[in-house]
């Protein structure tokens, strides 16, 4: 049973690696941010599966935390790029 969950976690990590291609190629900074947000959700799922596979319920706290934190990076990204563009538009 645990090997199945570990296999699923492995599959999700493969998903993240595949998503990395978009981060590398992504023409716009926004596309890269989209990929980063995708990895956040996939990371939460992978952590949950690992928590079940390794029978240590504490890892769920890490998953809970992760679900909240990906938003931080996106907020920072939006705040910074808009600040700079508004800045560029001024002069």
């Amino acid at each position: 049973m645990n090997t199945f969950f570990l296999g699923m976690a492995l599959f999700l990590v493969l998903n993240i690696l595949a998503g990395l291609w978009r981060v590398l190629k992504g023409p716009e900074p926004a596309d890269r941010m989209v990929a980063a947000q995708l990895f956040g959700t996939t990371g939460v799922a992978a952590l949950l599966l690992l928590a079940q596979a390794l029978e240590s319920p504490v890892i769920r706290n890490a998953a809970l935390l992760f679900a909240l934190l990906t938003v931080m990076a996106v907020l920072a990204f939006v705040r910074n790029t808009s600040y700079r563009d508004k800045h560029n538009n001024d002069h």
Partner: protein
Amino acid sequence: MTINELLSVLFCLSGGVFFLAGTAGLIRFPDTYSRLHALTKADNLGLGFIVLGLIFVAGSLPETIKLVLIWPLAMIGSSSACYFIANHVHRLTRNKGITRD
């Protein structure tokens, strides 16, 4: 293989399929808006299915509650992030006056 484990395997597999769809969408779709589309819908659904699958094999009640709590949080997080990015890209294109294809 008890009925619980069978159900949990089933749900986790379907969750995995949705994640695969999300990643495929991320890679294949032409522009940012459609990629956001893939990200938000497919992934949240995938996470939901995996959480559902794990609930069957989760041990005690508090674990289940924690699992159930994670899914809406992740959904709030990812949908608002999607909104921010979409809003940001829209403001960028409007400022530059060019229309994105």
